[in-house]
């Protein structure tokens, strides 16, 4: 059963130190606001899971929330490196970051396996890739019919999935559209699910085969307009490419990063306040 709560309450209730947390979003609908709240509430020792860790994971890592990262592509899309992610891996700052690295095909299948109640996923992948030499969670399985060997990865079963969606109705059913990524799989693979939404409506007005998460698979819904910015919410606002470019400079230096996070995230009460402060800085 879904509870409609504040984002702060959703994070306080459902994310605990040491949890494995998948904040998913494939470029689109990235749960930025939820990530900020995890930073504000100073969660520690999280295992962060995500195919495409981007700015919000860079921030979580740089602020010391993460013990481990499971991922398949870690960069600032279209810009370059994630400096906090690199600093953690290359120099162990602010603390060593364990990581389990996959390719997209494997991770997407691992979420689907988790959603399907299966312990592993088989894929025609990792052929000739060195990743299998470094990740003991890339194994193989033999087809019982053809004898072919296929790659196998363990299912992902996060403690918590966190996603941002366009709409929820008052019963707590959630609708997403556009680039839907692996959000449905992440939610169904997880034990608990937090959803932030652009708006709460009477009627989802969804098509017959729309990507809808029924209320009974969602633990908590928080109404957070623009909660995916600087990524985008299809039908609501565009991607702020400029911020992605600015992040490169903000995050490159440890002290600049820390100062920026303190001023904009730790010292703001919620995402609305954060956005106002960042907007003012950009226009200054």
């Amino acid at each position, binding site marked *: 059963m879904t509870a409609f709560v504040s984002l702060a309450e959703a994070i306080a209730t459902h994310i605990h130190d040491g949890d494995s947390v998948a904040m998913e979003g494939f470029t689109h609908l990235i749960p930025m606001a939820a990530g900020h709240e995890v930073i504000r509430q100073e969660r520690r020792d999280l295992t962060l899971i995500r195919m495409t860790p981007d700015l919000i994971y860079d921030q979580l890592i740089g602020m010391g929330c993460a013990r481990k990262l499971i991922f398949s592509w*870690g960069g600032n899309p279209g810009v370059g490196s994630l400096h906090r992610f690199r600093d953690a891996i*290359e120099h162990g700052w602010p603390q060593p970051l364990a990581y389990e690295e996959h390719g997209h095909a494997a991770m997407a299948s691992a979420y689907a396996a988790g959603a399907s109640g299966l312990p592993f996923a088989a894929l*025609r992948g990792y052929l000739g*890739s060195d990743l299998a030499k470094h990740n003991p969670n890339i194994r193989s399985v033999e087809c019982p019919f053809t004898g072919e060997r296929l790659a196998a990865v363990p299912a992902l079963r996060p403690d918590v999935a966190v996603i941002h969606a366009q709409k929820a109705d008052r019963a707590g059913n959630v609708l997403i559209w556009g*680039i839907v990524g692996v959000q449905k799989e992440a939610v169904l693979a997880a034990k608990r699910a937090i959803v932030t939404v652009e708006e709460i409506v009477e009627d989802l007005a969804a098509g017959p085969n729309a990507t809808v998460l029924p209320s009974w698979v969602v633990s908590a819904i928080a109404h957070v307009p623009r909660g995916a910015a600087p990524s985008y919410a299809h039908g609501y606002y565009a991607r702020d490419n*400029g911020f992605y470019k600015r992040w490169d400079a903000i995050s490159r230096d440890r002290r600049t990063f820390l100062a920026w996070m303190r001023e904009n995230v730790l010292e703001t009460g919620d995402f609305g306040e954060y956005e106002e402060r960042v907007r003012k800085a950009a226009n200054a």
Partner: protein
Amino acid sequence: MPDYTADELMTVVAARQLADRTVCFVGIGLPSAAANLARLTHAPNIVLIYESGTIGSRPEVLPLSIGDGELAESALTVVSVPEMFRYWLQGGRIDVGFLAAAQIDRYGNINTTVIGDYDKPSVRLPGAGGASEIATSAGEVFVIARQSARSFVDRIDFTTSLGHAEGGSSRDRYHAPGGGPTRVITDLGMLTPDPVTRELTLTSIHPGVSVEQAKAATGWKLRVADALAVTRPPSAAELSALRALEARTARAHAEAAE
């Protein structure tokens, strides 16, 4: 002096490799620019697929990320990421996978994972993303990369995406459904695998580039085809299509940032 830059020529040449109606799985950055230029010039019915799930995207401007809204809005349809990698890529529905490369070796093996040791990298790169399976599942693979001795290396530090392995028929032992790299387009020329040894060989050189330049920009002893072609320069139509695309892109990304 030519009236185009080396990057422009590279993108134009890369675009020319894509026949109309090709189903192309497009990497972000240089591959995306080339694939969209092809669509806007000689290949109006090319099918562009992005790993974010968009099938048949026809963006007016180049995406900054692999999942920009424009890719979804202009697509025939958008599928989930698990479906994209299972039904469309591993399902064998892709003619050409178009990849970029941080490091590439003489057999077209690609590294986008780390420079240095995996566990103690000197530079941590973004990683595989979809590339490992694009490299083995697509019917063939095109690579686009700026050529330099730092990126075209004798030994890559890490094999992210399989090319022709150690050359010859050595790729066969991986039983990859796809055929691997068939051309590498650079800012200096085009390299194609030797039919027997599978070693990347300079088969076309761009106007104004010398063979010595190409060799100097290659970390292995670069082989040069006996019948070395000189690349046809960009046509006025190609150049104006590319520049218009890039101008629209710059304008759109500046606006969106406001």
